[in-house]
Structures are given as structure tokens and as C-alpha cells.
């Protein structure tokens, strides 16, 4: 009985500790959620569809890519493939976080993987590396506020987006390239970043001019990934197998 009470209050404070850590993420992602909603409507989504995409996909960059391609009337399977491609990095997060949450019940793990975003991984991995346990309550406290704010703000952005009369004057048509450039530059500390960017940029521009959109996305991405695969692994900062 006494231990129940202690573990109960421990779980509660763990949850709120996670909530506190989630606040910077909530603030930083808010503009992107609103922007996503507004852009989704601008590219032909309804408010409900924008809300659904945020609630079910829950991955900012991939949602932006999805609506961008949707607006260009790209084949549906290619939009899905592009969402998959942009989110593919999560495979590594998933592989990394797996050993930290292996002690959870399976249902909790399944939910935990659903909200495994970039900041969720980064903060949880940092906690694990500092020697602390990554508990379910703490993890949920970290992830739940971000999720709730994300979907509500997406819907608000979509409603608001319908009210914007002149999207060109507000630059909304060019906000995504700026956002994606920001994301690309955010990875610049990775080994081999510049060669990969140059290869992907060159291949995508050539493909855009010859094969045409939307194939430039897949072709450019494959060029960059192939470069990293073909070059000796030590260039990518990956240790060769002993």
C-alpha cells in the first residue's frame, strides 16, 4: 500500500517533469503547425484533412512535403512514398530508443513509437545517456503536450489559411523552400553533408529539367544516398566493422 502511494506520486512527478521539458518543443513547433494548416488549405486540403494528417502522420517535415506534392498533383503513391522517404530517419531513432524502452509493456511501447519525433528522440536519448531510466510516464509527459498542441494548431492554421486572400503577397508559396533549406542546413554538422547536398541538388535539378517533377525528388535523393553508400564508410563517420 505504502509503496503504491510512493510509486504513484513518483509516476506523477515523472510525468510533470516530462511536461516541463516539452514546453520549448511546444513553442518551437507552434508556428510550423499553424503554417502547415494554412499551407495544407492553400494546396487543396480541407480543414478536417489537415487536422487528420497532423493527428495520424504527426511528422512536420513529411506533412509539408506531402501537401507540397499534393498541390502539384503528383501521383498518390508517390506522395506516400515521399512521406515515407522523409520520415525514414525515424528508423534510426527507433533502433536507438528500442533498448531504452524495452522494459515497457508492449502497448506502451507501441504508443511510444507513434510519438517518436526528432525532439522526442533527442530528449529521451539524452536522459538515457545521463544514466536515468526512460519511464513511460516521463516519456508521455514529454510527448503528449507536443502532440495535442500540434493537432490543435494545425486545425487553427487551416481555418486561418482559408481567410488569407493574397497568398503571394504574404510569400506563402515560397515559405516551404525556406523551411526545407533550414532543415537541410540543420544537418550540416553531419559527415559528408556537403557532398551529399551537392549530389542531390545537381541530380534533382537535372532530373527536374529532363524527366520532370515529381521524379526529381526520388532521383535526387537516390543520388545523395548512393554517394554515401559508395564512398568508403569512414567518410560518413561510420566505424568499419572490426
Amino acid at each position, binding site marked *: 500500500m505504502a509503496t503504491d502511494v510512493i510509486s504513484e506520486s513518483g509516476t506523477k512527478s515523472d510525468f510533470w517533469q516530462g511536461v516541463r521539458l516539452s514546453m520549448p518543443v511546444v513553442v518551437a513547433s507552434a508556428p510550423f503547425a499553424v503554417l502547415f494548416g494554412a499551407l495544407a488549405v492553400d494546396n487543396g486540403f480541407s480543414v478536417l484533412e489537415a487536422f487528420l494528417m497532423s493527428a495520424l502522420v504527426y511528422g512536420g517535415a513529411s506533412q509539408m512535403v506531402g501537401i507540397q506534392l499534393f498541390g502539384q498533383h503528383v501521383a498518390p503513391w508517390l506522395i506516400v512514398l515521399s512521406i515515407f522517404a522523409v520520415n525514414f530517419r525515424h528508423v534510426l*531513432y527507433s533502433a536507438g530508443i528500442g533498448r531504452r524502452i524495452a522494459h515497457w509493456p508492449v502497448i506502451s511501447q507501441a504508443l511510444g513509437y507513434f510519438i517518436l519525433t526528432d525532439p522526442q528522440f533527442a530528449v529521451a536519448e539524452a536522459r538515457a545517456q545521463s544514466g536515468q531510466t526512460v519511464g513511460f510516464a516521463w516519456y508521455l509527459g514529454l510527448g503528449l503536450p507536443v502532440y495535442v498542441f500540434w493537432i490543435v494548431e494545425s486545425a487553427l492554421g487551416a481555418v486561418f489559411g482559408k481567410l488569407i486572400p493574397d497568398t503571394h503577397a504574404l510569400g506563402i508559396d*515560397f515559405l516551404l523552400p525556406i*523551411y526545407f533549406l533550414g*532543415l537541410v542546413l540543420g544537418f550540416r554538422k553531419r559527415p559528408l553533408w556537403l557532398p551529399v*547536398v551537392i549530389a542531390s541538388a545537381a541530380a534533382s*535539378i537535372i532530373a527536374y529539367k529532363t524527366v520532370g517533377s515529381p521524379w526529381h525528388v526520388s532521383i535526387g535523393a537516390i543520388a*545523395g*544516398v548512393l554517394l554515401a553508400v559508395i564512398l568508403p564508410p569512414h567518410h560518413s563517420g*561510420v566505424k568499419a566493422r572490426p
Partner: protein
Amino acid sequence: MSTTFWIIIAGAVATYLTRIGGHLVISRFDTIHPRVEAGLNAVPAAVLTTLVAPELLNAGPVEWAALVVTAVVSLRGGLMAMFLAGAAVLIVARQFVG
């Protein structure tokens, strides 16, 4: 059900597969081949670059200015700072150049 709805559902399933897939696959292997790991590391930069590069072909002076400012701010600031700086340049300049 509309096509959009199915795109969203399929996109959600594909995304969940990436979030749980690494764990499911990696837990079955002891090691990842270094070349596979190198390729995986290159995925974000490779994919995202293809979304920016072709836009440069159609970009005018206003768009270029916005991208350059974004890149410069990225040397010091985070994602939010660079996005806001680039967006501010774009919106202000469009009022004059259109």
C-alpha cells in the same frame, strides 16, 4: 472516401512503420553494415535538398535574398530563427518587388 483521405491513411501507416521498424529490424541483427548506416545517415540531407534545389531555377531576386539570409542566419541561430529571418525578407521584399 476521397483520395486525400487514403493518402493520409497510407502516409500515416508508412510513417508508423519507420518509427517502429528500426526497432523491429535492429532487434533481429547484431550489427548494421557500415555502408547501410552511411546511406541512412545521408537520407535527410539528400531528400530535403531535392525539395529546395529545383526551386532555385524559378527563384527571382526576392527569393534568392530570402534563401541567402536563411543560410547566413543558420550559422548562428536555430531552425526557428532562420525560418523567421528568411520569411521576413521574403514578405517585406514582395511588397516592393512583387
